[in-house]
């Protein structure tokens, strides 16, 4: 190894330090929440005031503290925290009640704990093969649970509620959590390339989950599971033929679904021309477009929009709500933030030391990217609407906790990479005789 290589490696190891980014994040959190403190209904909003101080404090704690313990990717953590702040700010600005944003704050808090657990877990994990079968069984049982004890909600039966005295305390969407375990299992199976049986097992496992999701009518999750399974299969085997065949089968399945299920037909018809029935079936998407159009380039202003006219503005249509409040320029930049997270994630996958870690991190990034594309495309009427939510932003605990947990895995892998790089540098220095 030459001296120049060594320098490049050292630079690469210390690349991810961004004081400016942290500063901007804290500035955004504080100014947005302070603005909302005085704006909502023109009375002093104590909760927003506390959040205006608490959000920067927590962010600084995480961004300063975590890198001291582990060598994690700070840029990615900053970006994820930014998306979570956008979530709290948007929900506070649009919902105009204090309880709903508070719930979201709690979810994010739980999610951040899950993230730290995720980092520690993936760092400690030496024998991932032992986890595959238990996680597989868990996934199958957990995802099938709503079929047995769940109820229909918004045309799908994909959630379970924990009740006490007839009141739903908390509702959980298993498909959100199984996303992560699916990635884990697939990465585990597919990282052993020679084993045909294991590759087969991975595909069958993915297919089984898809069938269960079809029964639950959770089309959005179905599309995501299907596509990421295919992507991971392609990554691991490089088999273009079977990948293409899988995609074709998927397309045929979509066509069959169109003819077999009326709700798919309805979705497509609404997408094609919502103006045929602007007050009932097309109402949601039209109101989303109306909101985006009203926002214009620079937005109506925080708390000044009427995003509440869009049904499900806090979950499925939060992107349209953001467009209205912040304007489409901000919304486009938000997409850029997702791209940065994805690019950082891919670079983590590229520098991972084992193919299990590489596949796991790429899988998480892929499902995050596809989900973002699906829901943003649906919000702006580029593609038909599928019931998925905007990662890290939309209201809802399951999605938030599972994605933050998955981020933890990514960050953990990034720290493993950095540790390995550090070892390499030390070894090279020792070999070059610099360390005597």
């Amino acid at each position, binding site marked *: 190894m030459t001296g120049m290589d060594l320098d490049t490696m050292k630079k690469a190891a210390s690349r991810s330090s961004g004081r400016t980014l942290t500063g901007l994040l804290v500035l955004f959190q504080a100014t947005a929440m302070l603005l909302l403190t005085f704006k909502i209904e023109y009375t002093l909003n104590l909760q927003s005031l506390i959040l205006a101080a608490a959000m920067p404090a927590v962010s600084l704690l995480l961004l300063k503290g975590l890198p001291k313990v582990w060598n994690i990717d700070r840029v990615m953590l900053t970006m994820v925290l930014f998306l979570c702040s956008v979530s709290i700010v948007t929900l506070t600005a649009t919902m105009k009640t204090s309880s709903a944003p508070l719930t979201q704050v709690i979810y994010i808090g739980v999610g951040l704990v899950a993230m730290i657990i995720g980092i520690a877990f993936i760092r400690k994990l030496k024998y991932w093969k032992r986890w595959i079968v238990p996680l597989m069984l868990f996934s199958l049982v957990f995802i099938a649970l709503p079929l047995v004890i769940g109820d229909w909600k918004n045309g799908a039966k994909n959630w379970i509620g924990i009740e006490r005295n007839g009141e739903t305390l908390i509702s959980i969407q298993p498909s959100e959590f199984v996303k992560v375990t699916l990635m884990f299992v697939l990465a585990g199976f597919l990282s052993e390339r020679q084993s045909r049986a294991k590759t087969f097992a991975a595909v069958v496992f993915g297919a089984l989950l898809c069938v269960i999701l079809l029964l639950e009518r959770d089309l959005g999750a179905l599309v995501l599971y299907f596509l990421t399974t295919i992507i991971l299969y392609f990554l691991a085997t490089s088999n273009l033929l079977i990948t293409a065949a899988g995609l074709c089968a998927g397309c045929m399945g979509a066509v069959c679904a169109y003819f077999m299920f009326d709700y798919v037909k309805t979705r497509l018809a609404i997408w094609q021309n919502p*103006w045929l029935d602007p007050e009932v079936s097309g109402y949601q998407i039209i109101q989303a477009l109306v909101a985006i159009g009203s926002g214009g380039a620079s937005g109506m202003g925080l708390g000044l929009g009427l995003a509440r006219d869009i049904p499900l503005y806090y979950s499925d249509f939060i992107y349209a709500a953001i467009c209205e409040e912040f304007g489409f320029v901000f919304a*486009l930049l938000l997409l850029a933030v997702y791209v940065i997270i994805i690019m950082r994630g891919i670079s983590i*996958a590229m520098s991972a030391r084992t193919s299990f870690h*590489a596949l796991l991190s790429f899988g998480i990034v*892929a499902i995050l990217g596809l989900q973002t594309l699906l829901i943003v495309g649906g919000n*702006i009427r580029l593609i038909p609407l599928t019931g998925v939510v905007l990662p890290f932003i939309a209201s809802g605990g399951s999605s938030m906790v599972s994605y933050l947990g998955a981020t933890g895995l990514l960050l953990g892998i990034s720290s493993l990479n950095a540790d390995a790089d550090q070892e390499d540098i030390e070894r090279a220095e020792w070999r070059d005789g610099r360390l005597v």
Partner: protein
Amino acid sequence: MRELRRNMRVVGIIMLCMFIGVGSWFGYSAYLQGTRWMTSGNNRRINSARKTVTMGSITDRDGTLLAYTDTDGSRCYAAEREVRRAVSQTVGDTLSMSGTGVETMHTGILLGFSGSIIDRTWQWMIGENKRGDDIRLTIDAGLSAYISEQFPDGYTGAVAVINYRTGEVLAMVSKPDYDPYKAGTSDVVDTAYLNRCLQGKYAPGSVFKIITLAAALENMPGVSSRAYTCEGSRPFGDVPVTCAGGKIHGGLTLEEAFTESCNVTFAALSYELGGNKMVETANNFAFNDNFTFRDLVLYESSYPSDMASVAELAWSGVGQARVLVTPLHMAMIAGAIGNGGVMMTPKIIGQITGSTGIPRLRTDEGSYKTVISENTARIIGEYMKETVEDGTGYRAEVDGYTVCGKTGSAETSNDKSVATNAWFVGYIEEKSSPYAVAVVIEQGGSGGDKAARLAGKTLKKAIELIG
């Protein structure tokens, strides 16, 4: 591991491209169609803004007030009744009865939804009640009123005048019209709310021969030097195509067939060209295009791409069968001939001014598409010039200027006792006065008569008023 990294790079790049694709599509359409989306459904924001925001004013190109909010907050329209009525559908009304009017389509601008942070800060500093932006239109109030006045009494129809080099709409008059103060009352007939220039789909009749001629010139070498014979009627399949008024043109050149508007010759050309070539040329002229102009809503013109019979193909070549076109689109087509084959994007908003008095930056949309080659445009222009100098369109002449045009008498019914729709489309050749016009008078008889005369007067007045 190396293979895995390569695959990850490939999939990563595909995902990145998808993000760029979604982002660009979104940015592009939000920028271009944002105002359209805003009014595409019931928008409570507009109603609530109307209560708190002073709506901006609408003026014509010279600054004549067409709509404004007076001090007590009520919406007022042009002072002169003639002007008010002539621009009624173009400007619109408070009740949005004319859905394509500026008052409805550009409410967002008038209510200041697109107002920048600078404007908001300025208004806050000077303590002014929130005020929307002012719009200066490209139309001329005087010209509109003149056209409205000259429009034959008792007839309905439309006149569209554009500047074919810039795409500016100079006048859109649609008859019947209405007084915006009386919008929604029983004094106004329902059809008055329709802007026929934008929403009226008419059979073009012989004015469509411009497109058939273009198709022939571009696809059939030597077509202009051939000799044609017209015996007044020729069967295509089991249906004959006849010339208007039972006329028999005899032997003629292509130019004569155009200036004398011989149906038999043009039906034969369309038949010889075949469906594919005709559809291709019609599509080049923006037929079957779903127009999404930023400034105005223009309905789609249609040329059938699924022709059932030879007869339909032949008749479509003379603008009958299922061919339908809007008057503004027809003016754009005539203008494209005058502009060397380049069709301009129509625009109606000249300038938007915020409360600071600084005009808003607006990108120019420029040309819409190149419809034919410059050479073909030149030949068609020659023919159209001859049509006005020495053909069916002689009544459209303007002293001191060269008018190029084409008449049309479109049948709307199989019943021969129903008068044809009278059409005239044309333009002034002089580049100093680049105006194109489309006139349609419903059941106005032959296009060479009332329509050509009105077109001539309109162009003359446009030169007088605008230069």
